[in-house]
Each structure stands twice: as structure tokens, then as C-alpha cells.
């Protein structure tokens, strides 16, 4: 179980250029382009699912998060333009120059049989990270948000219906909603990562909607591998607070609303 400590903020589109160069100087590292495709799965509503397990413990129904990166050349075919500046072109709902069918293929496998024979699918192609996150604990005197995340690595999928979606439907889960995140990441001091990202929601008809329109989401976080490692938690908290102090007046990092980080089924406000 990973404990993720984080602080968030936002900047507008016009500040992006200056912000990246400021953070670049501050961290001493160039920005790293990243992206990930997230598919959230919910328990199949047609099933009559108990709220308790065999030991009569209450188990709240959580969404499952399935996550993997999208190859960068799908987003920007030109290698020379593939740096942090490419994010400037995404100021609208549309994902310009991106074929959404790639995402479809990732989730459901290739429908076209011929195509499957042609390209030899390498092993990392069907790898996913499956995770479930708890709602961050409440408390008035918290300095940073801390969220417990349980994750598992799926290295490959197999069987005669080999897509990840068919396995999860056997598990009792169906697709709820899909997100695509594109952003830049800075490696700051003391294992703090700072991300500036844009987030799109993709609906079933293939229409994209930018959730971060007009700006970028800023997230500074530290991952602590063990939730019992008090020393690392304290170090991480202090590192985040130092960064908060350093950036104050420019980017005001605050604790995100814990309710917006709730992935339980009853909570629908976050979508």
C-alpha cells in the first residue's frame, strides 16, 4: 500500500511558459513530458452485490483504476516537437491529431483479426497498473493530503478472450469513464514530483471534453512506499511544505478537497 502525500493548485494557460521555465530553474532539471490513459471501472450494477464480506466486515464498493501510458508518437508524430512546448496546442476540448481508436484498442484488444497477426504485440503492450485508492482521511490539522493507494501490476493478459476489459467483466466490473492526462513533470528535491497537466474526459461516443480548460492542474506529490514508515512520511510532508513555502505567492499549493478524491461508488459528485 502506497501513501501518496500531495498538494494541488492551478495555473492558467498564459502562465504555462513562464511557469515551466521557473520550475525548470528551481528544480535544476528539464521538464519531462508524460501522459497516461485512465479507465475507471465500477462494479456491474446488474449484480446484486453485498456490502459485507464473509467475515461480516463492511466493504464499501470502490472503483478500480486501470492506467497505462500512451505512446508519445501517437500524440505528436514529429520527434522534434515532442517537448513541453507541445502542450500549448491543447487549449480546447479537442485532442488535435490524436486517434482515439488507439485507446479503444488498448482496452478491448484489436477487433480486426488481420491486424493482430501483422503487428507482433510486444509484452509491455498489454501491461496495466490496476489500483484502488481510499478516500484521504479527514482532520482539521492536516498539512498535506494523504491518500492510500493499493496497486497491482498486470504484466500480460491471456486466454481466448484476452482483453483486459473481458477479464474485469469476469471480475464483476464494467467501464465507467475514461480520462487522458497529458502533462509535464519536474523532479524536485527530496523525491518531490511536480506535475502540470491537462485532463480530458472521453465519452463513449468518442467526444473529448477538457476538464482543465483554460489552465493546467498543478500537483506536487511524494509517494511513500509503506504507510507505517513514519519517518519517510514526515520527511515527505516537510519537503512538500518547503516547496509550498518556496512557491507561495506564485503558485499557492493547497490541500485538495478530500471528497473530490473519493472513488467510492456512492460518490458521484466528482465526475
Amino acid at each position, binding site marked *: 500500500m502506497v501513501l501518496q502525500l500531495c498538494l494541488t493548485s492551478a495555473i492558467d494557460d498564459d502562465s504555462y511558459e513562464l511557469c515551466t521555465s521557473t520550475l525548470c530553474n528551481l528544480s535544476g532539471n528539464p521538464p519531462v513530458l*508524460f501522459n497516461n490513459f485512465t479507465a475507471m471501472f465500477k462494479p456491474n450494477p446488474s449484480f446484486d452485490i453485498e456490502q459485507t464480506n464473509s467475515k461480516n466486515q463492511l466493504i464499501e464498493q470502490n472503483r478500480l483504476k486501470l492506467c497505462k501510458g500512451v505512446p508519445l508518437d501517437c500524440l505528436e508524430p514529429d520527434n522534434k516537437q515532442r517537448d513541453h512546448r507541445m502542450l500549448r496546442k491543447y487549449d480546447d476540448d479537442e485532442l488535435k491529431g490524436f486517434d482515439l481508436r488507439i485507446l479503444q484498442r488498448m482496452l478491448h484488444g484489436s477487433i480486426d483479426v488481420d491486424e493482430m497477426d501483422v503487428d507482433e504485440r510486444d509484452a509491455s503492450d498489454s501491461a496495466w*497498473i490496476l489500483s484502488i485508492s481510499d478516500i484521504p482521511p479527514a482532520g482539521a490539522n492536516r498539512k498535506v493530503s494523504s491518500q492510500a493507494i493499493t496497486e*497491482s*501490476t*498486470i504484466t500480460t493478459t*491471456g486466454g*481466448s478472450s484476452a482483453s483486459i476489459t473481458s*477479464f474485469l467483466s469476469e471480475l464483476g466490473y464494467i467501464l465507467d469513464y475514461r480520462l487522458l492526462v497529458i502533462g509535464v513533470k519536474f523532479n524536485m528535491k527530496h523525491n518531490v514530483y511536480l506535475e502540470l497537466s491537462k485532463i480530458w474526459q472521453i465519452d463513449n461516443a468518442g467526444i473529448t471534453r477538457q476538464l482543465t480548460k483554460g489552465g493546467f492542474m498543478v500537483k506536487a506529490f511524494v509517494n511513500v512506499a509503506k504507510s507505517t514508515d513514519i519517518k519517510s512520511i514526515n520527511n515527505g510532508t516537510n519537503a512538500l511544505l518547503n516547496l509550498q513555502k518556496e512557491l507561495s505567492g506564485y503558485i499557492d499549493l493547497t490541500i485538495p478537497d478530500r471528497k473530490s478524491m473519493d472513488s467510492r461508488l456512492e460518490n458521484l459528485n466528482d465526475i
Partner: protein
Amino acid sequence: MNSTVIFIERSAPATITDFYDVLANDLISVKEKWSFEFKTFRFTVKNLPPDSPRLMHSITFSHHGNKTVTIKNKSAVVTSTNPGDIPTSLILNGCSSRSSEPFDHLLTSKLSNLWTQRQSIKGDFGSTYQTAELIIRATNVFSYGGFKGLLIELECEENVQDTDFEQRVAKIRNYLKEMGIEDYKICGDSIDPLMKNYACNLAFQYVKVLEF
């Protein structure tokens, strides 16, 4: 790469020694010890269509890089807790935080309202024999401390033809016959003939012979 799994329920804890004696003439070397764990989970949803299967199986192999295969119906996933098995693209893109947990843990903690663990079968400290033709893994199988039987896994090298492999398996079956063992379950099928995913196929064969 081909494999076949044999499970002999009507056997004694000493059968494995007899088997070793029979093989002794063919042996090139005795290799590493191995183990596996086989768990069965049951879907607790009540209003499931009557024809859909309720059981899911997960098998962890100490050989094959400590991978776990979880199989239900026609779908399978291979999970790993080895940090080296997380693809770097997933780490660089911020999907993984580099600390994976066994998939079984996810089932028994976060999804325990949907899935209940039914039984756990273990084979510990099994032997690996290398002959000129096959790699033979044999282990006694226990369930909660009680002896369940003898499990034999046969594997050959990558470039061996299917028909050759079948002959080699037949030879082992002859040995078993000589030992007076004729009542056993054997499975050499594959879950999906198109995509030759070795770990998934092997797990599928384990499920077929161990499901009782």
C-alpha cells in the same frame, strides 16, 4: 514451448520417491526446488445467470519468475510483484508508484465482498528433474496440511514439435503405468491456441487437473 500437467490423487506421500527411482536411468541432473500455490475464489453475487461460472483460480509459480496467473472462464491475467517486471513506460508516465502488491491481496481485502477465498492448495519444496527430453517437476500437494496427491509438470524446450512432445509425454505415462498408476488427471490443452502465452496455458492446465 509445450507443457502438460498430471495430477495423481490416488497416491501416497512416498509415490514421488518411486517416481524418481523410475526416472533415475534417464536423469541428466536434479535441478532447483520449486513450489506453487493454488487458490480458488468464489463469486458471491447472488443473481448471476445460472450458466456463468462462479469460480476463479489464481496460481503462483516459484519457477517462471514468481508470477501469478489469475484465470476465470476464458480470460486470464498475469500479475507480478517483482519490481523489475513493471514496464518502465508505466513508471515514467506516472501510472505506477513502483510498489506492487499481489493481486490476491486486492481480492481478499478490497474486493472481499465480491470474492471469497474457498481453498488453498500448496506444493512446497518440489523437485526438478532434467532428462534429455523433458524438464520434469514433481511435488506432493497439500491442502491445509492434509495430503492431496502428487503433481507432475512436464515441460520441453522451445523448438520441439508438438508430436515429439506428445511422444515424450506418452513415455512418462508408460512409466506411471509400470508403477501401477493408471487413475490420474492429465491436461495438455491450451486456453487459447492462437496466442501462445506460456504462463497462462500452464495455469489453465493446473486448473483443469486440480479442480475438484
